[in-house]
C-alpha cells in the first residue's frame, strides 16, 4: 500500500487516519492526537448559550437510550430541542415554587360545595321533601332526551340537578323545572323555570303598587305648574308618544313563571325581572348574541329598553310561548260554571292536569302533529298574552281631562283593533310552517327497537327547542343560542322618517322666486304701461298745442 496515485483505483477512498488498516500504521500518536483534537473541539463551549456539543450529544443519547422511542431518527431534532429546553427548567436558586392556584381549582371548589349536604338538615325537612317533590328529576329527563342525542353530558346534568336542589332549598318555590341552556359569547346561561307559593306573589305585587302611586303624585304637581305659565309659551309639541302598554301581572300571561339563571352550576342563581310588552315588542325586531353577563347593555336599533337580563327574559318568554307543548289530553281546561261570558274575548288562560289522561302510543305521537298541543299562551303582537286596550281611560284620567279642557286636545289615533291569538291547547297541526318547512319535525328516537322508542319533536321555528313523550311522561327543553329561525336574512329596522317641524300653511310655504325672464318681462310690461300713459299725455299735449297753433293762425 502506500499513498495511491490519482490514476489508481484506490485513490480518495481511504483518508489518512481512517482507513481500516490504520491500526497497522506504526504511529498511534497522531491518531490519538486527532481524537483529542476532535474531542476538544466538541467540548468547546458555545459563545451564545454556554452549552457544548459534547455534553449535549451525551445528554441526547442518554435520553434516547432511556426512553427508546420508535423511529428515533425521524424525531431527532425534536429530541434535541427538548433536551436543550430541559436545561432551563432547573432552578439553581433556592426559591421554592409557589404552587400555582389555577382557576380550575377555584371552580372545582365551587362545584364541591354543591355536593355537600347543608348543615342543620333535620329529619323534619327530609320528610317534607319526600312528601312534596318540588325538585324535578333532571336525570330522568336527560335520559329520555339522550335517546335522541339531545342533552348535556351526564356530569353537567348532575351538576345542574344539584344546583336546582340548592335553589329549591333557598327560595320558597312551589314547582321547579329545568328550562334549558342558552349559549353565550363569554359564558352560558342555565335557566330554571319556577313558580312561587301564593303568599310570595302577593308580597311582590304590593311592592309594585307602592311605586306606581308615587309616580301619579308627581304628575299632579307638574300639571299645576303648567297652568300658571300659560301665557308666552313657545309652541308646544303636538307629539303624543304611543301609550305604554302595562306589563302583565306576575303569575299570568307572559309572566306566569319566574325564571332563575346562573352561568355555571355552583354559581349563585339570579332572578330575572318580569317581562314587559315593550321588551317583547323590541326583542322581536333585534337579533343579538348573549354575552353571558346579565348587566351587559344591549346595543341595537330599535333601542332595547333594558339590559341583557331583560333581553334574556324576553327571549325566554317568546320561546316558552312558542314551543312548550304536551300530548293532547294531558292538560284540560278547568271546569267552571257559567263563566264563559265573563272570560271575554281573551279565552281561557289556565289549564290543569287531567287525571284521566290516556297516553297514546309513540307511533301515533310521531305520525300526526295533532296529538300535541300548546299548553302556554301565545304572545300577541301587542306583547301580552291577554289583549288590553291602552286607550281605555280610568275614571281618574277622565277627570283630569275635564280640568285641562282649555288646552287643545291632540287628535286621538284610531281605535286599536282587538288582537286575538290562538287559544290555549291548540294542536300543533295548526302551527304555521316557514315557507315549505313544517313548524315541527317528529321522529321516534330509534327505528331499531320500536317498542321502547320515545317520540321526539324538534322545533324548526326555534332551533334548539325539543320535546319528548313516552307514555305518561313528557318534557320540553331548550338548548341553543336563543334566536328564532328565519330563512331570510335579518334586516334591521330602518330609522323612522324625520318628523315635520311645523305644520305647513300659506304664510310659511315657500314659493319659487321669479326667474330673470319673468322679472324682465314684468319690467317691460310696466314700462310699456308707463310709456302708453306718457304717450296719451303727449298726444293730449300735442293736440292742445295744435289747437293753440291753429288758433294763432
Amino acid at each position, binding site marked *: 500500500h502506500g499513498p495511491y496515485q490519482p490514476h489508481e483505483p484506490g485513490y480518495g477512498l481511504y483518508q489518512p487516519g481512517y482507513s481500516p488498516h490504520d491500526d497497522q500504521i506504526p504511529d498511534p500518536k497522531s491518531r490519538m492526537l486527532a481524537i483529542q483534537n476532535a474531542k476538544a473541539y466538541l467540548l468547546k463551549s458555545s459563545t451564545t448559550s454556554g452549552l457544548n456539543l459534547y455534553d449535549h450529544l451525551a445528554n441526547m443519547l442518554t435520553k434516547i437510550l432511556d426512553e427508546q422511542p420508535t423511529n428515533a431518527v425521524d*424525531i431527532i431534532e425534536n429530541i434535541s430541542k427538548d433536551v436543550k429546553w430541559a436545561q432551563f427548567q432547573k432552578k439553581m436558586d433556592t426559591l421554592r415554587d409557589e404552587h400555582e392556584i389555577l382557576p*380550575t381549582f377555584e371552580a372545582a371548589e365551587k362545584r364541591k360545595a354543591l355536593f355537600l349536604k347543608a348543615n342543620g338538615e333535620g329529619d323534619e325537612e327530609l320528610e317534607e321533601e319526600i312528601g312534596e317533590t318540588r325538585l324535578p328529576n333532571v336525570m330522568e329527563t336527560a335520559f329520555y332526551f339522550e335517546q335522541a342525542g339531545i342533552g348535556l353530558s351526564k356530569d353537567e346534568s348532575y351538576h345542574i340537578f344539584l344546583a336546582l336542589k340548592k335553589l329549591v332549598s333557598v327560595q320558597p318555590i312551589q314547582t321547579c323545572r329545568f328550562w334549558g341552556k342558552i*349559549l353565550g359569547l363569554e359564558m352560558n346561561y342555565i335557566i330554571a323555570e319556577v313558580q312561587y307559593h301564593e303568599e310570595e306573589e302577593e308580597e311582590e305585587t304590593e311592592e309594585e303598587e307602592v311605586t306606581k302611586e308615587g309616580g301619579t303624585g308627581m304628575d299632579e304637581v307638574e300639571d299645576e305648574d303648567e297652568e300658571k305659565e300659560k301665557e308666552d309659551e313657545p309652541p308646544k309639541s303636538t307629539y303624543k308618544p304611543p301609550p305604554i302598554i302595562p306589563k302583565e301581572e306576575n303569575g299570568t300571561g307572559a309572566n306566569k313563571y319566574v325564571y332563575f339563571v346562573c352561568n355555571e352550576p355552583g354559581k349563585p342563581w339570579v332572578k330575572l325581572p318580569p317581562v314587559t310588552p315593550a321588551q317583547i315588542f323590541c326583542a322581536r325586531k333585534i337579533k343579538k348574541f348573549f354575552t353571558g353577563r346579565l348587566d351587559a347593555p344591549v346595543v341595537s336599533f330599535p333601542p332595547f329598553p333594558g339590559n341583557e337580563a331583560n333581553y334574556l327574559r324576553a327571549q325566554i318568554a317568546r320561546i316558552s310561548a312558542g314551543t312548550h307543548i304536551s300530548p293532547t289530553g294531558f292538560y284540560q281546561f278547568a271546569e267552571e260554571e257559567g263563566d264563559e261570558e265573563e272570560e271575554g274575548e281573551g279565552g281561557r288562560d289556565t289549564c290543569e292536569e287531567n287525571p284521566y289522561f290516556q297516553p297514546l302510543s309513540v307511533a301515533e305521537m310521531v305520525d300526526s302533529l295533532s296529538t300535541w298541543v300548546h299548553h302556554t299562551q301565545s304572545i300577541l303582537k301587542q306583547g301580552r298574552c291577554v289583549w288590553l286596550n291602552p286607550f281605555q281611560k280610568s275614571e281618574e284620567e277622565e277627570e283630569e281631562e275635564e280640568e285641562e279642557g282649555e288646552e287643545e286636545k291632540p287628535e286621538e289615533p284610531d281605535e286599536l283593533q282587538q288582537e286575538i291569538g290562538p287559544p290555549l291547547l291548540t294542536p300543533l297541526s295548526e302551527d304555521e310552517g316557514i315557507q315549505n318547512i313544517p313548524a315541527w319535525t317528529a321522529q321516534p328516537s330509534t327505528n331499531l327497537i320500536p317498542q321502547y322508542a320515545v317520540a321526539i319533536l324538534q322545533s324548526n321555528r326555534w332551533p334548539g327547542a325539543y320535546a319528548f313523550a313516552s307514555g305518561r311522561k313528557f318534557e320540553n327543553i331548550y338548548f341553543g343560542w336563543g334566536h328564532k329561525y328565519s330563512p331570510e336574512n335579518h334586516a334591521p329596522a330602518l330609522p323612522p322618517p324625520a318628523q315635520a317641524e311645523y305644520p305647513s300653511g300659506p304664510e310659511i310655504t315657500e314659493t319659487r322666486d321669479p326667474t330673470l325672464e319673468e322679472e324682465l318681462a314684468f319690467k317691460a310690461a310696466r314700462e310699456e304701461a308707463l310709456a302708453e300713459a306718457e304717450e296719451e299725455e303727449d298726444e293730449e299735449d300735442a293736440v292742445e298745442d295744435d289747437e293753440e297753433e291753429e288758433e294763432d293762425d
Partner: protein
Amino acid sequence: MEAASLPAALELTAGGGAGLSAEKRAVLGTSLLLLQRDYRFERVWFWGRIQGVRGAYYIAEGLGPDRAAPRSRLYSLNCMEWSLLPPATKEMVAQAEQLKGRFQGDPSFEYKYSEVDAEDAERPIEDGKEPMIKEEARLVATIEQIDRAVGIIPRGAFVKTPLGPVHENRNFEGLSLTEAKKLSSYFHFTEPVNLKNKTLLEKADLDPSTDFLDSLEHDIPQGSWTVQLEKGGTVVVLRSLLWLGLTFYHIPMTKQYGYVYFGTGEKNLDLPFML
C-alpha cells in the same frame, strides 16, 4: 373528531346540547372501523351531523398518509351504510351558496334556483330545463365550506415534513392553559390564505414546520369565535358563530382535541348584526 376517541369527545362537546344517542354511538363505533378497513383510510374522523327537515345526514371523513390532502367524505342516513361523496368543485360551491333554507333530509331532492348572473340568464337554457341542484351536491359544497372556514386544529398538532406531506406531531403535548385561551394558538386546517401576506418580520418568528397554516386571530368578522372554559375550566371549547353548531374542544396539556359539527348546515349571515 377521531373515531377512536368518539365517546369521550362527545361528552366534552355536549355543552351545546347536541350529541348522539347511545344507539348511534354504538353503531358508529363499529361502522367507522369497517369504513377504515374498506376504504383503507389511515384515519377516520367523525365530522358531524347535518340536521335536515325530514332526516339527518351523518358525515365521516377519511384521511390518507398526507393529512393535509383533500379528504374523502362519506355520508350516511343511518350511520350504518355509507356512501362516498364526490369531491367538491368550485361550481358546486358557487351554486350551493345561492341556496337558502334548510336541508330536506333526502339526498335526491332537487332544488330549483334562480340564476343571479345576467350572463347566465342570457345563455340559452339547454333542453328547456330549469337549473337544478341535487341535495347531494349541496351537501358536498356545504361540508367543503365548513371545513374550509371553520375546521381548526391546535398549533403544533401537525407538522409539515421537509418533503411536503403533513403528519401528526408526535411531540405535541397539548397547549398550555394560557395558550389555549388565545385564538392565535389555533389554525385553520386548510390551504393557508393569509400566510403569504405576513410581513418578513412576522415570518421570521414562525417555525415553518408547525406554522404553515392560517391562525384564527385575523378571522373576519372579529369575534366570530367564542372561547370558553367548560367543566370547571378543564376543557377549552371553541364555538364558531359563523357556522352555528361547529364545536371544537381541547383539554390543555393533553393530546386530546377535535371538532364536530352538529347543526342545520346553514351559514349565519346575520353575524355582523348579532355581535
